[in-house]
């Protein structure tokens, strides 16, 4: 890409593949130039199961995005999901050498390496180490320790890791197109980038991104990621349940879910029926609305309760000032916010990418939260990097003066 303000996010989802082209404006905002998408095949539960087919679909989506945004795509940020992803919080610690008492960038790197020195399964690789807070000689809540005087630097990191080969599969799929992969990002973390504002992260918020194959969650408290994870249950499961419960084909079930489905019970007349028109190879059928809603309700209730149990392992759930934010394709299901609020006993909102503008139809569609989030993530990375080197020089200068 000639313009290095252009960034591309690619999400290989279970139901669709989407590519978002964004431009970072000088004022720091993000403009979405175009969105390309293609129905996804060969992906189950967020992971590629049929390499060739998935690659074709990715190619289709990339071409679509190139046409719509009029940009040649050369490198992308790729979202990673799948039940193999795990996370934990860990603290790293470095002691400064005796002849030096000022923290420099190398110490910050060291403390990050130190925090990663925990045993994760041999086949796993680190995906992210997200800084929560630094502690300088026991002083809590330091955001940037570079330049501070100290003997000991500690840092709390939220570490996300996953099975190396499974992460590599996504990367390979993109590289064979061929496109460059700039970075891989946990899809839940990507969504949170655009769904939440900094203020909401500070207050404490839980982002639940329910996609086709997986449900990703990220919990922020005091501005830092505290918990995250991925459960391999998503909209596909609801469709499958409907298809099996009502004995209708998958395609019909999918349509029925998105057009008529709701996860609120007792909201329809007793005996209210939905008529499915006959089609070639499918005799028409009448469906009891309450039955449909019950199937959806049970599945989502279970998924939320599972999430709740996981999140309750740590105390942050009780301190969510901003509440729950639900996004992803499945958030379009009617009543899902009420169900989440009921189960978590915390106000829940439906949301979509907030921190971007441009192709409004895309920005306002919760299905694109992750892909737009990738672009936002890229923007943060880009804006972070050059100034970092810059401030380093300044920092050195200043330290020399002092």
């Amino acid at each position: 890409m000639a313009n290095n303000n252009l960034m591309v996010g690619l999400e290989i989802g279970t139901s669709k593949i989407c590519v978002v082209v964004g431009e970072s404006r000088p004022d720091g905002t993000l403009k979405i130039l175009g969105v390309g998408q293609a129905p996804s095949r060969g992906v189950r539960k967020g992971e590629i199961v049929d390499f060739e087919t998935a690659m074709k679909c990715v190619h289709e989506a990339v071409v679509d995005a190139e046409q719509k945004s009029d940009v040649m795509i050369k490198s992308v940020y790729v979202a990673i999901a799948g039940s193999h992803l795990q996370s934990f919080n860990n603290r790293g610690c470095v002691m400064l050498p005796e002849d030096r008492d000022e923290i420099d960038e190398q110490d910050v790197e060291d403390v990050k390496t130190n925090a990663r020195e925990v045993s994760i399964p041999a086949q796993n690789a680190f995906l992210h180490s997200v800084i929560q807070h630094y502690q300088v000689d026991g002083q809590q809540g330091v955001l940037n320790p570079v330049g501070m005087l100290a003997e000991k630097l500690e840092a709390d990191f939220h570490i996300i890791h996953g099975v190396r080969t499974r992460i590599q599969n996504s990367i390979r799929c993109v590289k064979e197109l061929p496109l460059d992969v700039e970075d891989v990002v946990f899809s839940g973390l990507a969504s949170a980038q655009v769904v939440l504002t900094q203020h909401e992260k500070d207050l404490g918020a839980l982002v639940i991104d329910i996609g086709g194959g997986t449900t990703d969650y990220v919990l922020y408290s005091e501005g830092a990621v505290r918990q995250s994870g991925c459960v391999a249950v998503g909209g596909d499961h609801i469709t499958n349940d409907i298809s099996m419960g009502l004995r209708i084909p998958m395609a019909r079930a999918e349509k029925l879910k998105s057009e008529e489905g709701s996860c609120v019970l007792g909201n329809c007349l007793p005996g209210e029926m939905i008529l499915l028109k006959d089609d070639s190879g499918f005799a028409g059928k009448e469906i009891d609305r309450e039955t449909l809603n019950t199937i959806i309700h049970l599945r989502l209730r279970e998924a939320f309760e599972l999430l709740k149990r996981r999140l309750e392992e740590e105390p942050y759930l009780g301190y969510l000032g901003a509440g729950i934010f639900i996004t992803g394709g499945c958030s379009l299901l009617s009543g899902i916010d009420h169900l989440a609020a009921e189960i978590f006993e915390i106000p829940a909102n439906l949301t979509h990418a907030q921190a971007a503008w441009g192709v409004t139809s895309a920005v306002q569609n919760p299905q694109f939260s992750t892909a737009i989030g990738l672009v936002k993530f890229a923007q943060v990375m880009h804006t972070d990097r050059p100034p970092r080197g810059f401030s380093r020089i300044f920092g050195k200068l200043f330290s020399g003066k002092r």
Partner: protein
Amino acid sequence: MIQLNKNYSLPERLAEFIPIKIVSVGGAGLNALDRLVLDGLERADVVAINTDVHSLTSSVATRKVQLGRSVSRGLGAGGDPDVGYQAALESADEIREALADASVIFMCAGLGGGTGSGAAPYIAQAAREAGALVIAFATLPFGFEGKRRNVQAREALVRLSEFAHAVVCFENDRMGDLSPPQAGIHQAFAMADITISQSVRSIVNLIQQPGLIRIGFDDLLVALRTRSSRCLFGYGESDSDNRAHDVLTQALKNPLMDRGRMLADATHVLVQVAGGPDMTLSEVEILMQELGRHVSDQTQILFGAAVDARLGDRLSVTIISSLSAEEEADLLQTLPEANNASAVSPVREQYEVAAPEPEIQPEEPAVEVQPLEETIPFEEPVVAEAEPPVSSEPPVIPTRNGEPEHATIAQQEKSVPSKGEKEPVEKSGTPAKQEVLQFEPVTRGRFEKSEPTIIEGEDLDVPTYLRKRIKVK
């Protein structure tokens, strides 16, 4: 036998000695059995059955049966269940001989390998045909042992549960939590064996101990009855000052118990408290009260208490339960009501009459039961009308009494496809018949071929309404 306080001992209970056999199948079963024998177990015969001669020779079991002298020639089954099955077929006579004359047969088998998966179901069938109550203790392999082994184990478990009256299933993956992470692998396996041995021993004791409040097969079967194969088991023993509290904590710590969390969903919980002569009522009360916090109000607690002088000043508690589905729970709860006068549930009678029962008549009870099953969930009065023939007759024709209950369950099972033709082959003597199934074929729809999403022991790919047994339509 047991030294009992004369005030409490009742002669007819002492007379009720129950011949028990403990049978191990395959290498893993053998290890568990050895552990069991080494830990001390009276009043039970031990039989080791394996294809591998080498492991048999080193076993401490009193009776040994080598399977398939010509099929496997003294070697193991090589992980192939077919070889295990063939070997069992070849040595069928020896197996029958070894299993004869027992009322209860406990079977330990590690599923997944050749002998365990192949021969265990066959041996369970043979045991049942010998007229014994069969309780199987099965271990499922570790996840890392590979998919194939796990699939073999699951298949074997399904077959095993067709023949065994109850299956207590241990997942090795869960047992991993027992030992500290830095402990050696041998320790992890040893812990698994110890857990199995503990459960077998406590169940044997439970049945044989003439208690103040006795627990019988009936209670045991009710507690173990499940179709989700999820058995909860906990055992604790303590002689500390605060032993009532300690034993319960210890029992709930058992990995098969999941810290007591899963007890909340159980419909039946069997609790047996045993202690030396100094066990006080208040201790039992404290213990039961504390346990009460872990179970829901609807849970039926089958309580037993026994004084056993051998325990000295120790107190022990055994908690057995299984997660059963609501539908089934409805059924089970209504049945004991029917003969509460006799205080013996039909399951027990079913067992007792199993031997003399000449023939089963599948058609007739099925017809009889049809309306019964239909009406139970909906209207109470109709249930009452439907049941008098059952409740008034039990002492007269026990066979009939046992029958409906058997047929009802079989009936329920029949709604599940592909189970019907798996009826065990009936042979001369007591027919082995399908009664309680722990399993049903899982239906995962489009996720059939994808990697299963198993979280907290549930396969989330199976529709929620199926797992929770909520009727749709």
